[in-house]
């Protein structure tokens, strides 16, 4: 028997290994993000002032949609092949194993978006400071998207046509993260400083880290019965 964190580690490692064998899924989500964000300047036209204004919103909405792409497959394959049953029967905490899966989802779907966002921000003519704040807001915000998304994925597990239902269920819950995340950059551009928005975003992250894995586990147990 090892420490409490060993099963958590193994759960993260397993999902990362599976993702590494399915590279297309990661690359698809990332390219989707890049293309959605690129379409906006092309559609709106080359007005630097306007672009600077919509940049945070555009990047954040891109991140929301990119996260949503992979969410449906967060639990569905494990449910289909019985892995979820084995996880529920583990003598280790099911919540901890589920938390491991959520972390792996963020590492695969959220982190690449955070890393590429500053590059995409350049074409919206954001300043260096603006890019930094945007990246920090995404770094705090994308884990929230994975955490809340996991609750939705667990609730819609085994439901027919769960893809559309998942989007309807989850997108409204993303609104607070979107407001504070995109708002941080806008507030800084307006001269108010980003600290307030970023603190609220961090608070949201803490609350969802605490509750989302637990709620997800409860929903998964219901799906398994």
């Amino acid at each position, binding site marked *: *028997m*090892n420490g409490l964190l*060993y*099963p958590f*580690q*193994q*759960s993260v*490692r*397993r999902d990362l*290994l*599976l993702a590494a*064998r*399915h590279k297309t899924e990661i690359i698809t989500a990332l390219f989707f993000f890049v293309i959605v964000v690129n379409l906006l300047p092309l559609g709106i036209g080359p007005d630097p002032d306007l672009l600077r204004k919509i940049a945070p919103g555009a990047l954040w909405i891109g991140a929301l949609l990119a996260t949503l792409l992979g969410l449906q497959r967060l639990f569905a394959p494990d449910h*289909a*092949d*019985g*892995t979820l*049953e*084995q*996880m*529920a*029967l*583990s*003598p*280790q*905490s099911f919540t901890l*194993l589920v938390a491991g899966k959520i972390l792996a989802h963020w590492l695969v779907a959220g982190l690449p978006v955070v890393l590429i966002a500053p590059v995409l921000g350049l074409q919206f003519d954001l300043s260096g400071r603006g890019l930094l704040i945007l990246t920090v807001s995404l770094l705090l915000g994308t884990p929230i998207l994975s955490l809340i998304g996991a609750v939705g994925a667990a609730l819609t597990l085994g439901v027919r046509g769960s893809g559309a239902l998942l989007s309807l269920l989850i997108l409204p819950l993303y609104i607070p993260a979107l407001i504070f995340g995109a708002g941080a950059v806008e507030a800084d551009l307006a001269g108010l400083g980003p600290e307030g928005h970023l603190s609220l975003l961090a608070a949201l992250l803490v609350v969802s880290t605490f509750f989302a894995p637990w709620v997800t586990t409860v929903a998964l147990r219901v799906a*398994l*019965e």
Partner: protein
Amino acid sequence: MLSVSHLTCQRGERVLFQDLSFELPESQWLQIAGANGAGKTSLLRILCGLAEPVAGRVTWNGNAVRENPEAYHANLLYLGHQGALKEELTPLENLALSLGMEGFAVSENTALAALHPFGLQGREYLPVRFLSAGQRRRVLLCRLLLRPARLWILDEPYTALDAHAVDFLSSLIETHLSRGGSAVLTSHQSLSLSPGLCITL
């Protein structure tokens, strides 16, 4: 000791079985027989604590299994008819990760030592999707060698196995029983095991 009292299971409108009671002492095994759809897997899922019965209770050494699931699950090994194997991963990775998530560290050598008696030499590093149904089943059964547990609940463990593997599995179950373990299994075949209990749904 696993004991079940006055268990009733209902799927939708249909009552699958009702007022089912039995006890499974140590070193004993129980075969659950019944036609397809009689509720064998439903019963096993209730015994594992995955599903809740409409009425009745399941206890392990006097404690209700749904009240303290983690302590019960430390003693339990369940093999469902779904594989819980990832097609993209090799047998070694599958075993190491599934046991890792249960808190057991398995070194590569230990996992290899479990795969070899099941005749999986040369398949250790091949993704599971290249294995036949019988070979996948054998990978799953390796868990019996690697994961210590007092109670085995096996859903159709003999499916897709050849004669050699059937004998090997039977000898594993006998060894487990002789060490004071107990086993519940469903099977349609007549089993070459020492006499055990049997209930028919």
